[in-house]
Every structure is written in structure tokens, then in C-alpha cells.
């Protein structure tokens, strides 16, 4: 049983015109097995929250805390956070020229497991993970995310989620850009990870359709750098019907 606790998190980003405050005190607690959906208007700071938890160097933490089972996440380097059990499926996965998917996955698995996976079982493991997400085996020899379509990049993220088995996953608009079949396939991958590893999920989305597949326990409305309302799954339907007008003025 793991707990990710975010308390009073304040984050700014450096721009050419000085530093801009984005997160203005975020409070959120996620436990193993729970799924929290975050919905909110463009530019409200959802990705900033995701990146700050993962440790992207672009963001400056000005206040608050993030802990995983009591350990100070903000004091950890990016790779230490992953080793502690955090995973971020990115809104815009990064292309890494010249590095093959198979080499990347093996290097990551070696780092996270503390030893290189046995070659024979590893090959089968990767093959299975790729098949489960309907990815052609040829992706293994391609360079990481290079030339992948938007949907292929998202499937590649969830394939990593299944292979690397974190405790807590932040999915930043994993559903954006997926066709109806891919949405189902990707959602099933997330649900398998939840079932197999008792994964806690923070799911950032603009649409309720993914919530039909991945059932949230809680829905949070995010606006202007913090959470402005919390509720159950029915809050998502309300948002879809009414938009964020009630919240952005607050």
C-alpha cells in the first residue's frame, strides 16, 4: 500500500520575461489502487503538476511538499523518483534519435530492477507487452518515439507503464489523439497495470470518454493553478455538459 501526498505545492516556470507562478498550492492524496481524474482548462497547470512531480528541470518549486510513502520526492533526482515508483506518461513523449526502443527499455528495466533482466525472459516480456498494446514488433528496432504517430507514442508510453511496473502513474492526456480502438487498447493496458500492481493513477484528461474505460474514484477540477472542486465520477459528466465557466472566474 503506497501513498503519494501532495501538499500546498507551489511551482513557477522561468520565462524570458522572468518567473511566472503556475501552481498556487495544490493538495492531493493518491493511494494504491485509486484512480483520480484531473480535468481543467488549457493552460491551468495540469502538465506543470505532472512534470513537477516527475522532476522536470524547467520548473522551480517555491513551496509545499510531495512525498511517496513519507519519502521526500522533491529532494530526489529524476531517476530516483522513477526508482521510488513514480511514472509519468507524457502528453508529448520525447524523440531520442539513434536510441532503439529495445535498448531504451532494457536500460530502463535494468536501472529499475537493479540488475539486467535475463535475456530470454526479457525478449518474451517485451514481445508480450507490445502485443498487448497492438504494437508491431518492428517498433523494437525503431528509435525512441522518432517518427511515431501521436497515437503510437501514447501506446508506447503505456507499454512502458506495463513493463516498468511503477507504484504511481501520472497519465497526462494519454487519451488525446487516440482513435476509438486505440483508446480501448490503451485503457485496457492501464487497467491491467492497476489490477496487477495495485497501481495508483492520476489521470489528466479533457474528455469523459476515457473515464468510461478507466473508472475514476475521484474527479478533481483544476483551474488557475490549483484544485477548485472535488467529487465522484458524476462530476466529470457535469463538466462535460457545463464546461469550466463556473470555475475559471473563481
Amino acid at each position: 500500500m503506497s501513498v503519494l501526498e501532495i501538499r500546498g505545492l507551489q511551482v513557477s516556470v522561468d520565462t524570458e520575461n522572468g518567473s511566472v507562478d503556475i501552481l498556487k498550492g495544490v493538495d492531493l492524496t493518491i493511494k494504491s489502487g485509486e484512480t483520480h481524474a484531473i480535468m481543467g482548462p488549457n493552460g491551468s497547470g495540469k502538465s506543470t503538476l505532472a512534470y513537477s512531480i516527475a522532476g522536470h528541470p524547467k520548473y522551480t518549486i517555491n513551496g509545499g511538499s510531495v512525498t511517496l510513502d513519507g519519502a521526500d520526492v522533491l529532494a530526489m533526482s529524476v531517476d530516483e523518483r522513477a526508482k521510488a515508483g513514480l511514472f509519468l506518461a507524457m502528453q508529448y513523449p520525447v524523440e531520442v534519435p539513434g536510441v532503439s526502443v529495445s535498448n531504451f527499455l532494457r536500460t530502463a528495466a535494468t536501472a529499475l530492477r537493479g540488475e539486467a533482466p535475463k535475456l530470454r525472459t526479457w525478449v518474451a516480456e517485451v514481445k508480450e507487452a507490445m502485443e498487448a498494446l497492438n504494437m508491431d514488433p518492428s517498433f523494437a528496432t525503431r528509435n525512441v518515439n522518432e517518427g511515431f504517430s501521436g497515437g503510437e507514442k501514447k501506446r508506447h508510453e503505456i507499454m512502458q507503464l506495463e513493463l516498468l511496473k511503477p507504484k504511481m502513474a501520472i497519465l497526462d492526456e494519454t487519451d488525446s489523439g487516440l482513435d476509438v480502438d486505440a483508446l480501448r487498447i490503451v485503457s485496457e493496458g492501464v487497467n491491467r497495470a492497476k489490477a496487477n500492481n495495485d497501481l495508483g493513477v492520476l489521470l489528466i484528461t479533457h474528455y469523459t470518454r476515457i473515464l468510461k474505460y478507466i473508472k475514476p474514484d475521484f474527479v478533481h477540477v483544476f483551474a488557475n493553478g490549483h484544485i477548485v472542486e472535488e467529487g465522484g465520477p458524476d462530476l466529470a459528466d457535469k463538466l462535460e455538459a457545463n464546461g469550466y465557466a463556473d470555475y475559471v472566474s473563481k
Partner: protein
Amino acid sequence: MSVLTTNYLTPTGREEAWRFTPLKRLRGLHDGSASVDLRHSLITKAALPSGVTFLRENLVPLAASDDVIIERIRGEASETAHLAIAADIEISEPIFLTRSNGSMDSAELSRVRISLGTHAKATVIVENIGETLLAEDLEISLSAGSSLSFVSLQEFDAKTVYTARHHAVVDKDASFRSINVTVGGDVVRILPTVEFTAPGASAELLGVYFATAGQFFEHRMHVDHAVPNAKSRVNYKGALAGKDAHTVWIGDVLIRAVAEGTDTYELNRNLLLSDGARADSVPNLEIETGEIVGAGHASTTGRFDDEQLFYLMSRGISLDNARRLVVRGFFSEIINEIGNEEVQERLMSRIDNELEKAGA
């Protein structure tokens, strides 16, 4: 042993061709003050396939040169080590040449020829290793329809000074590819130059270099499009780390008025892995006719991409390993073209070591 007389114009460092080169570190190769030893360092590594010979001969140079060091070599050294590949044979396995007899006490002035008969096809890999003071005039002749992949690996020890011109003369429908890999030595200065003598000829000049603290590596191409319908591609990638690591890439491409239908593109990318290193990159395209297929160049010098490192590290990969992956990835595009797994893996681990040594 003999001492060179200074019959030739000694470079001062103000000349365009010499303006980047640290002349003081050439140990007298450029001004004739180096004592010369009549040694022949280039040897074959294994028995040669049939149709291939490696002999010392008296050969007339293929092409004139305005490089003073090349002039000195031609004035001093009478014999040329000649690797000849007969017409119409195709050799699938690479032919390896390597170095022996290196010395820093005296200079070797080396003349080398690699020639391919019509429609011959081969890969030649030269392993430039050891500690030595070496000036080389290497000429390559590709007869009509032939095809050569020429791989020159500068894996020298730390003190080595190597200056060379690798000049290819490419005949009708012949295709020449060179891959220069420079990872070792104190000063390495190579002039990969190409001239086309008939239409349909093509040349691809690829290279990678990795300079760490104090090393100077210069690659100065010259591609002369003097005939119609020839094609050239240049792609050099470099990494630098450590104080006073210095690399120079010059890409001179000349499209003469007669060279209609020319297709050329040149690219140089540099990765600066630490402060205190300097990468000079000068593409230079001279076009005397508008009737061409294409001509372009690009040159970039940048640092590690934070987004790439973040992505890798967010999957648990340490900063050191993430950098290693990115640098390997950067070079792999060219290293993988060598087509020999063993050599490729050796070079990649050498690159890992350079990176580690530099602590970048």
C-alpha cells in the same frame, strides 16, 4: 634519417587553410624541421583475397595538391604503398589495413594508393593506431562503375600527430563512400577531398569525431564538382568535452560552371558536452551554375537536449547512462554505416570511455 629542407612555403597560420591549426603542435611536419625516418607503417592485417594486391611501387601522384605537407611527402618519399583491387571483383568482407612501427622521435612520410578497377566493389578499413608522428598522402582511384567504402579509423594514442590528405578521384558511375572516425591523437588534421572526372559519379563523405581535453581534430573537406550530373553528400558529427578540446570542420563544395545537374548537400552537427571546448564549423558552398538538382548545407552546434535526458531519466536511467545513450545515439547514424559489428562496438565503447574520461 634525414632532415627536410625548407623548399616549400612554410605556413604561418594566417593562410585560410591553416588558420585553425595549432602549428606549434605539428612537431615540425609543416616547416620541415621534423627529422624523417624511412619507415612504412601501413600493413595488411590478414591474407588478402584473390584479385587484391598490396605492394610498394613507384607511382605518379593522381592529382596535384596545394598542401605544403603533401608537397613535402611527394618530394621525400619515392615509394607508394599500393592496395590494388582488380576489375570486376566484388569483395564482401572488409579488407583491413593497420599500423605498425610508430615513433614520435621522427616523422614518417607516407604515400598510399587505393585503386579499384572498373566495376570492382570493396570495403577497406584502415585502423590508424599507436603513438606516431605521421604525415600521409593517401590517394584513391575509382575506375568507372566501381564502388568503394573507405573507412579510416583514427584510434591513435594520446601523443600522436597525424596530418593527411585523403584524395579520391571518382570516374563515371563510380560511387565512393568514406567514413572518418577520429577519436584519438593529440593533433589530427585530415583533408578528405574528392574530384569527379565523369558524369554519374557520386561521393558520400561521412565522419564522426570526439575530442576531449586538449585534443585538436580538424576535418577539411573539399568536393570539386567539375563534371555534370555528379552527386555528393557530406555528413560529419562531432562531440567535444573538456578544456581546450577543439574541433574544426570545413566543408568546401565547389560547383563549377560545367557541373550542371549537380546534387549536393553537406551537414555538420556538433555536440558541446562541457564548457571550455570549441567547435568551429564552416560550410562553404560555391556555385557557378544555376542548372543544378540541389545544393544545400547545414551546420549546428548544441548542447545536450534537456528534454531527452529528462525523458530517459524519468524511466529510472541515471544521468550518466542517459548521456551515454544520447551520445551513442547521436553517433550511431554514422558508426552503423561501417557495416562491421565488431568495429562498431569497439568504437562505441571507445566513445563511452571518452565520455567517462571527460566526466561530461
